[in-house]
């Protein structure tokens, strides 16, 4: 549907109540795959991390990765889930070339975790509690490349190529219950929910959590219920929405699209839909059909997973503070205004700022450096700010500024040196000879020189035009190549004019 044909968003909400549901796939960052000892990494050549098991060769058999079970349980606990006393893998049977065994080893009616809850906070401050139906374990599919036809599209391709390096990588699929009452906030709920999941898995360290690399993938279910009705509408499932902003846009688009269709007397087809990042629309995929008879049955090559309660409690004890609670605590501790704190969070610098403060820096200084100069340099270099410099070095830099050894301007040069690998801030100061000149002798000489060039300045100061000192200070700083403490220079100039307090 063209954007012009969509129903106005407010109008859509007037007529319909959106009902949401999300399936989020989280790729675990275990060293090996879910069911074999092949490395869980891709990026080198295709099909380099495969074996008879993950290639689905005749005779291959699965072996469960203990770490993946542990990560799944921890994730389940972090989502407030109950952990099953008895859980089983099941085969989900369907044919597809990226699925080596032509069944996915997943879980069906006995998932590892179920009945959880996640409360998210919207920008308005509204709290929304999302009920988690289940979190289950499964293996990922390989990667298809479509050749010929439209660039990379499956439609019209001449043939496809398969790389099974990703095949068998452990996934946890988190399935929500129906989310009702989202109303106009529905798109934001989608974004915030996925952001919260991403934050949780990152905090747990169970996933690299990079959406752009597919570590976290979201399928968004949207249906509309006419106002006054209690009958659920037909839902669509928009697959693989892979950025937070896209989740928000896709939900909003589906609400507007479905509303336009329904208002025109049309019906919604139960189908999967594809999200197009470039055009911001969804398009019809495969309709749900008989072919979705997945013939689930318990995986006979694997035995049940029955985590002892002791083990579950041990794992519970390893859980980090929930991200939302941690944020609340840190903002209070640091005394940041909402905007200041949001700035840190949105720049993904919470850990870096926290570590810098832990290393002795004042909270505001840490925030200022990270969201300011470091973020700017990172942006130029095209890397994440926290990867640019270690928090301990930033704290050391701040300490030098506080001690008066460096001005802000000098400190920026020192930072560049640290990033360039020249050593600690102190080492860079020595190496580059950048410390503030604290001996008054050279300063007075420079001031004399500047006053000689601008003889009327002292007179101006004496008649109260103190700002005239600025010109002299500027000249002195220039002459000292910045290695002077401007405040001290000012003091000395005023002293000379005889107006110093």
């Amino acid at each position: 549907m063209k954007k012009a044909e969509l129903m106005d968003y407010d109008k859509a909400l007037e007529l319909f109540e959106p009902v949401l549901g999300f399936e989020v796939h989280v790729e675990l960052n275990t060293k090996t795959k879910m069911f074999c000892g092949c490395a869980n990494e891709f990026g080198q050549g295709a099909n380099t991390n495969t074996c008879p098991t993950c290639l689905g060769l005749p005779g291959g058999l699965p072996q469960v990765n203990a770490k993946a079970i542990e990560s799944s349980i921890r994730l389940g606990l972090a989502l407030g889930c109950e952990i099953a006393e008895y859980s089983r893998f099941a085969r989900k049977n369907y044919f597809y070339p990226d699925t080596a065994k032509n069944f996915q080893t997943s879980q069906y009616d006995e998932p590892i975790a179920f009945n959880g809850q996640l409360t998210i906070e919207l920008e308005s401050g509204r709290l929304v509690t999302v009920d988690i139906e289940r979190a289950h374990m499964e293996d990922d599919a390989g990667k298809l490349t479509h050749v010929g036809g439209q660039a990379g599209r499956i439609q019209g391709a001449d043939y496809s190529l398969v790389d099974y390096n990703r095949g068998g990588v452990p996934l946890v699929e988190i399935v929500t219950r129906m989310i009702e009452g989202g109303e106009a906030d529905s798109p934001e709920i989608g974004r915030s929910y996925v952001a919260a999941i991403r934050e949780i898995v990152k905090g747990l360290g169970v996933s690299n959590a990079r959406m752009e690399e597919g570590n976290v993938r979201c399928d968004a279910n949207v249906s509309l219920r006419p106002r006054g009705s209690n009958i659920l509408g037909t839902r669509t499932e928009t697959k693989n929405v892979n950025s937070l902003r896209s989740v928000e846009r896709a939900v909003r688009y589906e609400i507007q699209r479905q509303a336009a269709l329904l208002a025109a007397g049309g019906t919604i087809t139960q189908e999967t839909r594809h999200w197009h990042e470039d055009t911001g629309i969804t398009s019809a995929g495969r309709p749900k059909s008989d072919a979705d008879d997945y013939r689930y049955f318990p995986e006979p090559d694997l035995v049940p997973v029955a985590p002892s309660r002791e083990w579950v409690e041990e794992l519970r004890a390893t859980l980090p503070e929930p991200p939302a609670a941690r944020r609340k605590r840190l903002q209070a501790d640091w005394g940041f205004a909402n905007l200041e704190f949001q700035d840190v969070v949105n720049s993904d610098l919470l850990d870096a700022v926290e570590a810098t403060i832990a290393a002795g820096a004042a909270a505001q200084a840490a925030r200022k450096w990270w969201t300011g100069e470091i973020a700017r340099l990172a942006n130029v270099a095209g890397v994440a700010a926290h990867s640019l410099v270690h928090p301990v070095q930033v704290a050391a830099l701040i300490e030098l500024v506080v001690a008066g050894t460096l001005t802000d301007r000098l400190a920026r040069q020192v930072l560049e040196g640290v990033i360039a690998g020249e050593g600690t801030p102190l080492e860079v100061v020595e190496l580059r000879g950048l410390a503030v000149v604290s001996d008054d002798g050279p300063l007075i000489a420079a001031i004399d020189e500047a006053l000689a060039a601008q003889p009327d300045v002292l007179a101006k100061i004496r008649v109260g035009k103190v700002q005239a000192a600025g010109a002299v200070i500027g000249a002195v700083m220039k002459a000292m190549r910045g290695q002077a403490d401007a405040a001290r220079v000012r003091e000395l100039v005023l002293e000379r004019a005889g107006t110093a307090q």
Partner: protein
Amino acid sequence: MTNLIKLSAADLSGLLADRSVSSVEVTRAHLDHIAAVDTDVHAFLHVARDAALATAARIDARRAAGDVLGPLAGVPIAIKDVLATQDMPSTAGSKILEGWIPPYDATVVRRVRDAGLIPLGKTNMDEFAMGSSTEFSAYGPTHNPWDLDRIPGGSGGGSAAAVSSFEAPLALGSDTGGSIRQPAAVTGSVGVKPTYGGVSRYGSIALASSLDQVGPVTRTVYDAALLHDVIGGHDPLDSTSLTDSWPSMAAAARAGLADGALKGVRVGVIRELAGEGFQPGVRQRFGETLALLAAAGAEIVQVSAPNFEYAIAAYYLILPAEASSNLARFDSVRFGIRVNPAEGPLTSERVMAATRDAGFGPEVKRRIILGTYALSAGYYDAYYGSAQKVRTLIQRDFDAAFAQVDVLVSPSAPTTAFKFGEKMTDPMAMYLNDVTTIPANLAGVPGMSLPMGLAPEDGLPVGLQIMAPAKLDARLYTFGAAVERLLEATWGHTLLSQAPELAPTEMFASEEGVV
């Protein structure tokens, strides 16, 4: 000079150990015999003559160098084609895998190689082990050495025929519902299905994962025990593999050779498998064997297993269901043949469907469709779910029986070897052939078949099945060895010594360069 091919693996082991013969001599003798008779028997799908001789030479060299070798080092072995071998094609008797050489060895194959055995080649089988006659092999049937017009049993007819025609002293088989024991019975050889989880399934091309078990195929109980010791034990690559430490099966078999080994053994005769509707000669030999056992001091106890009558039904739901999923991977993408549809566009879906139509034989298709049906929405509970419950009931029957007796016995198969084509057109008649062997697979308990005579009406071998409680495979070997000794003492010879000599064919001549 002794006829090397007629010796048991245990005897060959002794001659090799004291260097009376070399492994190359032993291996060549078997290869020559294969060349002479296998055109008629067709036990082998692939013979690795050069590789076998080279391996034998290496073993001889190691022995000469004073290396400490296992008891079966230098002894030749035939390997069922269901097992992945990285130097030989592994087709599971199916056209869809024609020529496929796996990039890895099955765990049992690896263990056999590590123990210094000499793989001779790959043996014929019903396609994907679905069948009781080898008539469903895509590469033509194997013939029973006792009567070349008859079936050698199945699915492991190739391995059973290989040992019973003296082409190999040892073979590996796999048993999902009787594929080791029923061929052993109809060829007069010995076959053992170990406790489920006792032997690794890694690299065994799966038929039904919860039923499959790899095991030894031999001419004597003691040889089976020696081979069991080589292939058994925990394998981390098979998640259903048992971690138990196992006693030596060979020692257990030797214990059975002691005088009085049968005294006081409580032998359970399962009323439901006692021979009603079985071939008269089978019933007769079974009765005689029981009488001999009783005379030797065993206590014969009648036991009942009321749920066994549901075993075939449960089996033919569980097996096809698991098989339909296990065989999904045969899709022309990563291995195996690829067949394009006769007409229409070449899409991935259509090529897969055409490949599976052309590559699978009729029995495989039948079971895949049946299994797909049993698992599909709306039928699962009535079929697959119910079959799993029957499994519980059958386990309970076994538990109740083993509370009263030490071992259970029955004929291994209802009939002796039937003629080719007799049951091909009636799937249910073929399925009923497994009535005696299936319960052990459903419950996971170990079972053995050993010869108990020839049926008077057709002069063909009849097998005795012995079953023991789960994990007590050693008991099978002790009891089996004792029964074997008792029977052979009664007959005054081994059963296989009565088999007709197979005439060499032209193929032998061509090997000699005459043609």
